[in-house]
Structure formats: C-alpha cells, structure tokens
C-alpha cells in the first residue's frame, strides 16, 4: 500500500502546470501587496490601531511600526514578483510565505478565508520545485526540469478541492438551503443593479441561487476531475467567480480561486494552450522513467499529515455541538465562505472590585470602526478585548476589576440576542480550544422572511 502510494506520488508529470501556477500565483500576490499599499490598508489595519486582536496561541506576535509595516509590504511585493518569475525562488518563496503568515497573525480581525488559502498555497509552493522550469533560476543555471513528482499536483488538487468541498458543506444547513439566507439579505440590497438587479427582486431568486451556490461548491471538484466535464466546469467556475466579484466586495478571492482551479487540468495544459495560441502542435517533453527529486518518505509523511490536518480542521466544530455560525467555535480555517450576515452591539461594564465603582466602556475607545465591527460578532475577540480592558484599568491603578459585557448579535437577520452570558466576569475567563461555557447558546430564533423590493407590489 505504502509502496504503491510512493510510486503514485513519484510518477513523473509535466512540470508545466507547476511553473504556470507559480507565475500566476506570484503575479496575483504581488498585485495583492500593491493593493494594500495603494489603498492605504497598511496604516488602516496594521499601524493605526492601538490594539490588535491575536489568534489563540499567537498573542506574542508583535505589530510592526509604521516604517516596518510599509517596508514589509514593499518587500513582500518584491518577493512575490520573484516568485512569479522564479528568481532566487528558494529564498524568495519561503520568505514570502513567512512574511504572509506574519501579516495574517498581526490582527485576527483581518482574517479572510482567501488569505488563509493564499498562505497555504504559498507554503506548498515554497516547498515545491516550482522554480525548476520557465524561470529566471532555471535560465541562470542553464538547466531545467521537464517533470516533477505527481505528488505536488495531487497535493495542490487536494488543497483546492478541500476549499470548494468544505465551502459547499458549510452551506448544507437550514439558513442557506431552506431560508436562502444570508444571500436573500445581500441580494435584496442589489435589486437596483443594472441587468441582474431585477432578477434579485424575484422572490425565489435567493433560494435558487443559494442552492446553485451549494451545488457548485459541493460538486465542482467532481466535474473538474472528470475530463469530459472539465472545460464546462471551468467555464462555470469563471462565470461564478466573476459574478461573486461583481456582486460582493470579496477582493482577490475570485481571482485566486479561478487560478487555483487550474490545477485540475492535465499537467501539460500550459504547453497545449501555448501551442494553440501559436497554432502549432503541442510538443510535450518525453516522459522520463524516473523523475528527478522524488518524494522521500519524510516528504510523503509531511504531505500526509498536512492533508489529514486540512481534512479534519474544518470539521472541528462538531466537537463543540453548537451552531458554529453563532458561537464561532470552529469558524476560522474551515472554509465557511459567505455563510453568515452577523452584526452586533457590544458594551463593556467594568467594576472595581474594591470599591464597587463601575464604568461603561465602549469598544470604540480601543478599536477602530472596522475592528469593532468584526469583533462584535466573534466571541473570542470580545473576550480578548475584555482582557485588554482589564489590563488597561489595572495599569492605570484602577484594578482589580471585573469585566462583563453586554454583547448582542443578530445572525442572518434574526432579532438580536445575547451572544455572551452578561453575568460572566470575562476578566477571569480564559480562551481555549474547549467548549466555551461563557458563550450564550444560539437562541434558535426564526429567520424573518425578507422579500426583495419589487416594482410589482401595490399598497
């Protein structure tokens, strides 16, 4: 079994797909870094906030100074460009992956599924021999690989397949499939768009599109894996992601997914495409008996652990037995893409234990508007700020204090309900991976039946 697996992952496949993936990924990442620079997001997200939310276990990650932050993004853009053209790849690609991980770890309110995907892809790419063909490095060495072990191809296919499939599974719930929420909310605000707007005013549109989105995410990997359906499936991928980009502010996500889905094509697709462009017959290099740089048992073990981790990580919410969209335990790193519309209102109540003196503290005292908005629906972030407020009061000589919170949230348009038990002293509550008893249970309120604005209705 193991021998057959090793044989399979070391089967030679054309390197063209990997070189093309490297080029496109590096290009997109470089553009992405320049977007941060051009749109002023560096200051907005990483420099100006006086408090940064951290991921569990990564509270030690420091925020950069203004100069470092700006320099970092210029360097990251350069590194991504190096990845793109395959220049000094063995240095540039790992540095880019580490730098990107650092950027993600600065503030948890900037978490996006597609940033997480980009991080995973950049890490896998950094480990791969993606620079061994069609690159500056290959040109400098005057030696290029023609084939790579198939394991790299399968690893990336599994990773991209996990994203789509789990994004589909995350939609297999009543809000999405029975209520058409939150798509109904989002589409109802788009009814004045040209061309498509009137369609969104049609009442069944939200539910139909919810089902279409669910079926797309859950099955697209199957269609992309089958040779006969692949071209049509990829066309649908392009249309789907263009549509999502037009309708929703989801940044680079559509571009990354359209690029990532290319891994499902045969590994020689770039040569064949290039040949079609040049109107010549495709000329793949001869298949070697053995591929250079095969996967060692250690690499195979690493890849296996990686895949198992990626398969299990998004399922961890089952251990918490709650509604993950409400309590958010198991929400991140799980490909729950666009499955909730959640807004909250948070006010902290601080009480000096020695005197009983109380303060009402608005999150805005510590956070910018975007941070506050993101925090209001995420219990672990609300807890983090409670701890920060406690430390702040103690530092100002006002401690020890109790910190409680009035945190109400609305999920997918439901009436607001307590997200956190208002009687719990959060100063004495610690975050962890266990089930959080301090998070109020999902009240299971009914979803309001929203209808889109239509020209057809009369008083």
């Amino acid at each position, binding site marked *: 079994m193991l021998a057959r697996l090793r044989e399979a992952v070391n089967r030679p496949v054309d390197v063209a797909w990997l070189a093309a993936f490297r080029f496109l990924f590096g290009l997109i990442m470089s553009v992405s870094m320049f977007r941060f620079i051009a749109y002023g997001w560096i200051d907005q997200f990483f420099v100006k906030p006086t408090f940064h939310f951290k991921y569990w276990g990564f509270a030690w990650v420091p925020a950069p100074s203004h100069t470092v932050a700006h320099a970092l993004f210029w360097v990251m853009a350069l590194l991504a460009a190096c990845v793109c053209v395959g220049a000094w790849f063995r240095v540039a690609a790992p540095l880019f992956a580490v730098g990107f991980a650092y950027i993600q770890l600065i503030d948890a309110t900037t978490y996006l599924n597609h940033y997480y995907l980009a991080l995973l892809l950049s890490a896998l790419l950094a480990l791969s021999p993606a620079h061994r063909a069609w690159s500056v490095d290959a040109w400098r060495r005057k030696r290029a690989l023609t084939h790579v072990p198939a394991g790299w191809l399968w690893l990336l296919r599994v990773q991209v397949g996990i994203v789509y499939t789990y994004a589909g599974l995350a939609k297999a719930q009543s809000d999405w499939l029975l209520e058409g929420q*939150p798509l109904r*909310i989002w589409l*109802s605000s788009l009814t004045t768009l040209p061309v498509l707007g009137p369609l969104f*005013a049609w009442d069944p549109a939200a539910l139909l599109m919810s089902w279409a989105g669910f079926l797309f995410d859950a099955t697209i990997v199957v269609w992309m894996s089958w040779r006969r359906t692949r071209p049509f499936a990829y066309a649908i991928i392009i249309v789907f992601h263009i549509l999502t980009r037009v309708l929703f*502010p989801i940044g680079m996500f559509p571009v990354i997914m359209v690029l990532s889905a290319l891994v499902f094509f045969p590994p020689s697709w770039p040569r064949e495409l290039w040949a079609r462009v040049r109107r010549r017959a495709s000329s793949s290099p001869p298949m070697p008996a053995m591929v250079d740089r095969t996967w060692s048992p250690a690499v195979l073990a690493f890849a296996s652990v990686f895949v198992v981790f990626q398969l299990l990580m998004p399922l961890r919410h089952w251990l918490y037995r709650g509604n993950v969209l409400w309590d958010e335990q198991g929400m991140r790193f799980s490909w729950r893409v666009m499955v909730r519309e959640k807004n*909250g209102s948070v006010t902290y109540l601080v009480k000096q234990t020695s005197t009983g003196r109380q303060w*009402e503290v608005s999150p805005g005292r510590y956070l910018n508007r975007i941070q506050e908005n993101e925090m209001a629906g995420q219990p672990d972030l609300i807890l983090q700020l409670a701890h920060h407020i406690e430390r702040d009061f103690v530092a100002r000589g006002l401690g020890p204090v109790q910190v409680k919170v009035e945190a109400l949230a609305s999920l997918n348009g439901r009436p607001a309900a307590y997200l956190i038990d208002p009687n719990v002293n959060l100063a004495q509550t610690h975050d962890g991976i266990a089930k959080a008893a301090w998070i109020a249970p999902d009240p299971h309120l009914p979803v309001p039946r*929203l209808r889109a604005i239509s*020209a057809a209705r009369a*008083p």
Partner: protein
Amino acid sequence: MKKYGLFALISIATLVWACEKNSPREPVFTGTGGTPATGMGAAPGTGGFTFDGGGLGDGGFDPDAPVTPVQFSKAALIKATGDCALGLYKQFALDAGRLQAAVAAYAATLSPEDLAAAQTAWRLAMATWQQAEAFLFGPAAGSAELGGQGLRDQIYAFPSVSRCQVDIQLVNQLYAKPEFGNSFINARGLGALEYLLFYAGTTNACAVSSEINVKGTWAAVPAAELPRRRADYAAAVAAALVPRSQALVNAWEGGGFKNQLEAAGKSSQLFTTDQAALNAIFAGVLPVDHAIRHEKTLDPLGGTENCAQTPCPGALESPYARESTANIVNNLVGLKRVLLGCDANGEGIGFDDWLISVGQADLAQQLRGLFGNAVGAATTLAPPLEDAITTAPGNVVAVRTAVGALTTFLKTQFRSLLNLDLPMSVEGDND
C-alpha cells in the same frame, strides 16, 4: 452537459423575464411612510425647504399613529435624506446669519435686551444644528469618509469643547487677530459661543495650575472688562460661523455632493451603488447616537473615565444655556428625520419604509416604538439634565436605557436586514 444546458437556459429565460417585467431600472415600492412634511413653506434662501416648527422640538411625534402609504424606492430615500440634510444646513445657514446679527448687535451695545436676543438666536441655531448632527455624512463628516470635508467640527466640535481654552483666548484676545479663524476648534463654534453668551461669572474654567492662573493674566483682566471681551469674542465666533455654514451648503450644492449622492449607482464617482450611499447615510447616524449615550448623558452622570466626579456638571453639553436636554431631544428628532422620514412627526420616506418594503412592517413599527420611547424619555426628562444628574439620576438612566434599546436595534437586526455595511470597510469573504 444536458444538466448545465438546462440550467443555463432557465437562467437566461429567468433573467430576460425579470428584466422585462421590471423595466424601470429603479424599483418602486409602495410602503407606508407618511404624508409630505407639514409646515414646509418656502422661506427665503432655503430653496423652498424649511422645517416645521423652525427646526425645533419634536413635532408631537406619535409612534403609534397610522401612517400614510408612500412610494418607496432607494433612490427616493437617498434623495429625501439628502434634501433633508441640505434643508437643515440651509436652515442653519439662515440661523447663523441671524445669530451673527444678534451677537453683533449685542457687542455694539452690551445691553441686556440684545444679550437676550443673541441668546435666543443661539438657541434657535443650536436646535437646528443638533438635528443636523444626525446627518453626519458627506462634507460634514470627517475627511476619512466618502465626500467628507470635516466641516461639522468647524461649526460644532462637541465633545471637543474647551471652556478653558476659550478663557485663555479671552485673555490673549486671539479672537481679534486674523489667525483666529484657524485657531483651535475647541474654542470656536457653537460650543464656545454658549459659554461666551451665557456665562457671566468672573472665574475661569481652567485649572489652578494653568498658565492664565499661575501667571495671573486672568486676574489682570478687570472684571468690568470681561463682558466686553466676551461679547467681542462671541461676535468673532458668530461671524466665523456664517461662512462655515455657507461652506457646508456650498459643498452640497456648488461642490456637487448632492448630485453625487442622488446619482448613486448611476454616474456618481463617490457612490458606485445606491447601497453605498445608504451605507454612508446609516454610518452618519451612529456618531450622534453614541454621543447621546456617552458624552451627553453618561459623562454628566459622572464616575466615567472622562470624569471621575459624580455627578459631573462640567461634562454637560450646554450647562450655561441649560439646553442639554433640548440638545438630546433635537438629536433624536434629527435621527428620526433620517430613519423615519424628514417630517418632524416621523413621516415622509425613511428607513422604516424600506423595512416595510422588504416585508418587515413589524420591525418598522418596532423602530417607531423605540423612537417613541427614546424621544418620550428625553422630552419628559424632569428636571432638566442640568439638575437631573444631581437630583434624579435615575431619570437620566432611563433616557440612556431607551436610547440604548434603539441603538442595539439599529446596530444588529435593522442593520443586518437592510445589509447596511460600513462605508469603505474591509473586503471580506467570510460574511
């Protein structure tokens, strides 16, 4: 293949049908909103738009009153809100002109009658502006906002009001110098004017350790000279308000913000969708809502991070004019104009009509009820806030509670259902 072909055919057919069915690009929906605002006679210089009751008071708002159906569309809501904001700004520009004239007259005579007239003019201008506070979008908003020019702070920078700084400038007579127009905003505008027109004491608001007390420069000003200086200072402040208020009107009209707003989703450079414009409008109501619950009520109650003293009269918004309660009521009236309709009675096209148009009539009624509670609590606050913080703090807490319930609703379910997002917020893929 057949599956996809069928899907594509259905999609195209649906699209064509939907496009033909709703041929007018802007959907029109009949909700229940209200009758046109009452008392909207055309006043000179207001572009045919004035506010019932001269921009004052609550207009007898009845949250349970039946409302008259109006045609709802997002474009109509955007236009109505823009008209309402501009109407208030124009009204304020008129009020500012009257205020300048009244204060100048007082500065010329220093007579008690002219002082009373100036104080009345300030009250009227302040009442209008407090309603305009609920429209903190566009040129009035900070420069970080879409179309923001920071003009609000040039007129009224609350809570950045420093009575000490006013006293310092009273001593150094900065108000008589050309650079006064660009001096600290916390010693100009309506906040400074209240202190100058309504405070007649001989003590200053600075700490004992401040320079004017340590060096004795305050004490060196003869007490008899203080009314003269205060009147001159007030005249300078009032005079500066006129071009500021006109600048705000100009930014909307000549500057084109009104056009940008009304062209949202069409040719607007600022608002690429009508939803973006509505997001900006919604974001503009939150600051005053926050101010009511914190700076205007919680801080005066005291024991807060801003003021440890309990109660804390120094934190009152307009303690000398004793208008702190009226300010809150007018803030709520302003909020009501945005969210329920521009008429002071909460009628006209508003966000409640939007709720109704998406099938949420109960929530629209809930919104009106929450407004009724908040306005009712503020209007009936007795004694006034200046006294209540000492004698009846529970009544102030009741106002805070009523406004807090409104806030929670706005920031949670209301916002979710109408998909109101923060303008220029981060791109996301997780919600």
